């Protein structure tokens, strides 16, 4: 006769292997990052290509100068954009190609209507209207036939440079002119780094400061949700197929539960762990280039929060699966739990910018949101250098672990007796009666 721990391991092994061998698991494991990866590459490449094409195309601009300030301005010039900073370490040591100079042709129009007719006819691509009170009001109007939803990527610098250069023409020397035109390009912004020293604030690092906490907390939430969902699905299927009663003759509900939680939690961890390792491997060079390291303590906390959060959510998911009459109904209930787990992302900006704000502290102590919230704070602090008080981490973990034990105990009872209620979902008084059973 095997020992109880052996039975737990037998169940865990079976649950794990059955889950990871499913086609759906393999597809999720491979396709999800592939979709993100290729989607990201294709989408970024498309946007870059579009922006480059826009930048490099010859500009033909109709100018309606009601102010008369640009009567003598040259109508043809070449625009050379400034060199952009490089974030990609693979490109860091390569020689930077000089930006391409794009020819810009300005055509004068006496009135706006004629200029707009010309735009409609396709003779010009842009209409620039300089209002008569431009000097006092600064108002300009630009017309383009553009169907894009967002216009923030449109580069107006050739026009604004032309306007500035010709407005100041004769009033200053060329050097001052250049400094005025590119003001801010050479501004070095210093903030204190993690060691308290003044250091240039790095745009790439700032980006990492946003993406890293999001990625780590997202992965943690995904691991908890995946494991919980597998458990919910397994329990619902077993309840629907009426297999459990036979099994409970050979194993105790606790053994069955422990085996399921272990096996399916392992499946969830395998899924997300693979994504994390693949993500860290592929982004290692970028993180190293921008001097961002993922501390081992962060991964250790991630594992701890996964364990506690998983026990908490998995126990509830299991109870839902045992009490509901079919998988569809169970999935509806579990949706609310998933929302509770991911709701810290709604306030992600608060977590990243002010990881010690009252909202961030409260949500990282409240068990249902603790795992995701604290991982957001911890990973944000790994980039920004903010310090999360150790007592908050200890209290958060203790509350989550304690709640996990309580939900596990209640879940075991609901699982044992709820699984025997076929064809009906008990209401709250009935659930309370089940909990009062010996």
């Amino acid at each position, binding site marked *: 006769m095997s020992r109880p721990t052996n039975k737990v391991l037998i169940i865990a092994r079976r649950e794990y292997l059955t889950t990871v061998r499913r086609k759906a698991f393999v597809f999720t494991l491979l396709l999800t990052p592939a979709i993100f990866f290729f989607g990201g590459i294709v989408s970024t490449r498309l946007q870059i290509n579009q922006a480059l094409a826009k930048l490099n195309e010859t500009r033909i601009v109709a100018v309606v100068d009601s102010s008369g300030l640009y009567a003598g301005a040259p109508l043809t010039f070449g625009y050379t954009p400034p060199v952009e900073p490089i974030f990609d370490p693979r490109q860091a040591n390569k020689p930077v190609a000089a930006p391409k100079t794009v020819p810009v042709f300005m055509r004068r129009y006496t009135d706006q209507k004629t200029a707009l007719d010309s735009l409609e006819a396709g003779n010009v691509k842009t209409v620039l209207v300089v209002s008569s009170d431009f000097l006092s009001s600064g108002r300009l109007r630009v017309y383009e036939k553009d169907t894009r939803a967002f216009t923030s990527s449109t580069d107006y610098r050739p026009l604004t440079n032309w306007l500035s250069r010709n407005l100041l023409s004769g009033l200053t020397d060329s050097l001052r002119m250049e400094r005025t035109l590119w003001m801010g390009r050479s501004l070095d912004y210093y903030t204190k780094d993690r060691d308290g020293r003044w250091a240039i604030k790095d745009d790439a690092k700032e980006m990492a400061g946003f993406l890293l906490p999001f990625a780590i907390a997202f992965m943690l939430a995904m691991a908890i949700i995946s494991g919980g969902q597998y458990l919910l699905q397994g329990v619902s299927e077993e309840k629907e197929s009426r297999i459990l009663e036979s*099994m409970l003759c050979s194993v105790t509900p606790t053994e069955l539960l422990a085996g399921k939680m272990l096996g399916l939690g392992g499946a969830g961890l395998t899924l997300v762990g693979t994504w994390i390792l693949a993500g860290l491997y592929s982004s290692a060079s970028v993180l190293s280039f921008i001097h961002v390291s993922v501390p081992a303590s962060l991964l250790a906390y991630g594992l701890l929060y996964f364990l506690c959060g998983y026990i908490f959510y998995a126990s509830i998911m299991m109870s839902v699966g045992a009490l509901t009459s079919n998988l569809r109904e169970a999935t509806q209930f579990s949706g609310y739990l998933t929302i509770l787990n991911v709701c810290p992302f709604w306030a992600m900006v608060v977590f990243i910018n002010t990881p010690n704000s009252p909202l961030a502290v409260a949500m990282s102590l409240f068990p249902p949101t603790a795992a995701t919230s604290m991982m957001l704070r911890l990973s944000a602090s790994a980039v920004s250098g903010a310090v999360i008080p150790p007592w908050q981490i200890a209290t958060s973990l203790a509350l989550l672990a304690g709640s996990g034990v309580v939900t596990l105990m209640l879940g075991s009872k609901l699982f044992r007796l709820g699984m025997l209620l076929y064809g009906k979902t008990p209401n709250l008084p009935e659930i309370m009666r089940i909990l009062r059973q010996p």
Partner: protein
Amino acid sequence: MLQVRNVRKVYDGRTVVNDVNFEVAAGEIFALLGPNGAGKTTLIRMITDIVRPDGGTIAFGGKSVAGPQRPRMAYLPEERGLYKKVPVMDALAYFGELKGLSHADARREAIELLEEFGLAAWTKKQVAALSKGMQQKLQLCSALIGRPELLILDEPFTGLDPINVQLLEDVLRRRRGEGTTVLLSTHQMNKVEEQCDRALMINRGHMVLYGAVGEIRRQHAANEFLLTADGTPRNVAGVKTLVAENGHWRMALEKAAHPASVLRGLLDQGLAVRAFVPVVPPLEDIFVQVVQTGVGLDQGRSGPPTLDELHAAGVR
């Protein structure tokens, strides 16, 4: 031996199992009978320790079924299922491992059982690919694997064709011969008469019949005999009624009449008696009468009704 002592279960103030006592010996096939909702499933769930009783004790081999060392038992519930998307061998071997067999032993025993039940050719097929009858046999295999000491079967014959019914009966007899205790819950009374040594019938949680199957039937027999003879019997002392029935004569004897005196009287008439057989009611008739009359259901009593109580209630 399975020992159920004064077991009681109450749900929401309603007593669904009330002071039930019985024993099942090792190597015995024991029938648990009762109408729908009588409390059979609750009683079985208490024996398998899925549900805890509110009173009384249940022990197997002298040890509580709720103790740390659980007996090797298997339960095939009436509403049962299997993992559908796994190979037959894996589904069966998994149950074997849960019952304490090693991985290798579980697979070896699974092969033996699949061969015994004619499913050896389906070992690598998915369970979902099996017909309903085959799945039924596989469910039986999942109960039998691990050589349980106590085997609880709820309506095991449902869904099986006559050949497979015969097969299952043979398997049960073999298991009984090997010392397995079998608790059989069924509404197929003919199977109880054929297979079971003793029976317990509960109604609304109360024990209403308990004893050897043959004895229960004999106890419920009226003083009636079936006579096969050449010729027509004339009036015989002690015979209340005489009715011709399918080439026989059904004779109802007076309560005080002794069958031997009546037979002697018939022979004295010069009748060539070829058979004189007591009429024993089928278990099904006894079941219907006991349930319909509701005998033994008075609250506060302990144990099944006495024979006198049954007769008084009109149960013959």
